[in-house]
């Protein structure tokens, strides 16, 4: 295989593992996939614009914009029984990442884009809700390991409905 295909395969394998951690609520393991040092960015962008990725969270109301401190606090919070929205019965989640593209390598940094479809089932609501969108990842190669520096999610939704909130990791 060419280097390009090898890299693509490596990214895919990594992202599938990341998705599994989120789907299985393995929150500590999920957070361990992030870079150990320096700042992080985990975002879910604004819903009512098609070009949210171009607008800073300083200029428009995002749904989530976590730096390292808040992301870590989010993970701590979601593991507690007092995170009522997802306790004692947690949403069943299933991520699908497809259409991996726009892979750009700069030094040890890799930017890429994937489509995302998360199916979510909550016991106390009817049916399955679909959360469609795309993700801009910024990954880093540390020795032979990939780590997440940024995960920016932009959803194809006008508003959040059924269920209307997200106390989970997508």
């Amino acid at each position, binding site marked *: 295989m060419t280097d390009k295909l090898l890299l693509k395969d490596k990214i895919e394998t990594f992202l599938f593992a990341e998705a599994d951690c989120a789907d299985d609520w393995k929150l500590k393991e999920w957070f361990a996939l992030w870079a150990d040092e320096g700042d992080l960015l985990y975002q879910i962008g604004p819903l*009512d614009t098609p070009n949210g990725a171009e607008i800073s969270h300083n200029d428009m109301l995002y749904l989530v914009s976590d730096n390292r401190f808040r992301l870590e606090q*989010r993970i701590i919070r979601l593991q507690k029984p007092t995170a009522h929205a997802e306790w004692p019965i947690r949403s069943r989640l299933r991520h699908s990442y497809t259409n991996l593209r726009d892979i750009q390598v700069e030094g040890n940094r890799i930017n890429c884009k994937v489509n995302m479809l998360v199916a979510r089932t909550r016991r106390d609501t009817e049916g399955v809700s679909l959360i469609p969108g795309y993700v801009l990842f910024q990954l880093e190669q540390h020795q032979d390991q990939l780590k997440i520096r940024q995960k920016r999610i932009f959803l194809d939704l006008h508003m959040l409905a059924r269920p209307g909130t*997200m106390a989970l990791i997508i």
Partner: protein
Amino acid sequence: MSKIPPYESKFVQYDPSQQIFRVNRDAYRCPEVFEEEKQKVLYKSWLVLGHEAEIEKKGDFVTRRIIDRELIFNRDNNGQVNVFYNTCLHRGPAVCKQKSGNRKTFVCPYHGWVYRNTGQLISTGSHEFDAAYPKHYFDEGEAGVKLKRVKNVAQRAGFYFVNFDDDAIPLDEYLADAGKRLDRIASHTTAGFEMISGVHEYEIKANYKLLCENSYDGYHLNQTHATYVDYMMEMLKGADIDPGVRGNAYSLGNGHACFEMPILTGRPIAQWLPPWGEEAKQKIAEKRAEVIARLGEELGNDVCDMNSNMVVFPNSVINDQQTILIRSIVPVAHNRMIARAWTIAPKDEDPVLRSIRMENILSFLGPGGFATPDDVSMLEWAQTAYESTDVQWNDFSKGMRADENTLRDSSSYNDELQMRAYWLQWDKLMSAV
């Protein structure tokens, strides 16, 4: 406002001397009650529409659903603020499908009727078509065809309200002391406010009044928001700062109420938290000094330190906390609502403080925040239980004194005076023949 004597109605049991305040769960779970309250409460009240910052320039508009009415809120080319029903006078479709923007005209997509942003019809699609209509249709005066206006539109401290009732009392009279709370928010800056684009819009499967109650409920903080309180303590770690979990609630007349707490959730005006760092500390100290120089020591400190959550009866929430949050609740059915929240910020805000504001909003509020999802779960679980258990009454008696003047009184932030004031007003309107 005189005291209401003890009474019992279909929906409310009220007796301060016995510390009894109960609300019938039918008020949340019956479709018939919802239809009745639309007519008697929602269409009879002043409802928050938006803020002047959203339509600052000539031509600026916002389209918005208030209760079940689709509206256009705009500033026309003469600088006048209008609220129109969003429907073509010809055969009906909305004349504006965008959420916001700047337009000189509104065009119906069906046959092409064109309205100036003052509401006046100026074309029916072409000169040829225009000639097929009476000339007065295009008259700028009274005879002309114009987008229908909502008759009662008024503002207080930049916050715009509408009222669909022809016999509405003036807004200032309606707001009673809630008006002063809006004035106080306006005192954050002398430069005016700007709209932050973007909106948090999410569906909740619960009666809209449950979200009103939740919005100024200080009592649920430690339990529902245990994880947020943990997060707050983490932010204050090692700083030897009093977290400020205390405060008062006030009923403000006509069913409006608020609580006020010095709680350290952090405020760009002007309360610093350790994780924000030294540069922010300096900027916040400067902002505090500016506010105190302008408003005096007592009021200035109050404006800087106090988080306030207010419900303007019956469906408008205006919070002065991590930011100035306007939450308009759209009741959709007896067991369903859409919560829509957006925010304004001082025009002259330092970029460092603006950045803090934008991040701090998200830590607590919104569908991805550390608090809102848990609130929403509580409301949905309450609604489900109302509909699936044979229990008739909710209890709102916490902290009720025998001499309480419910519509205009004060109590601890974690009592339930706020909700009692709301429900007395609601019941008064529902009891009207």
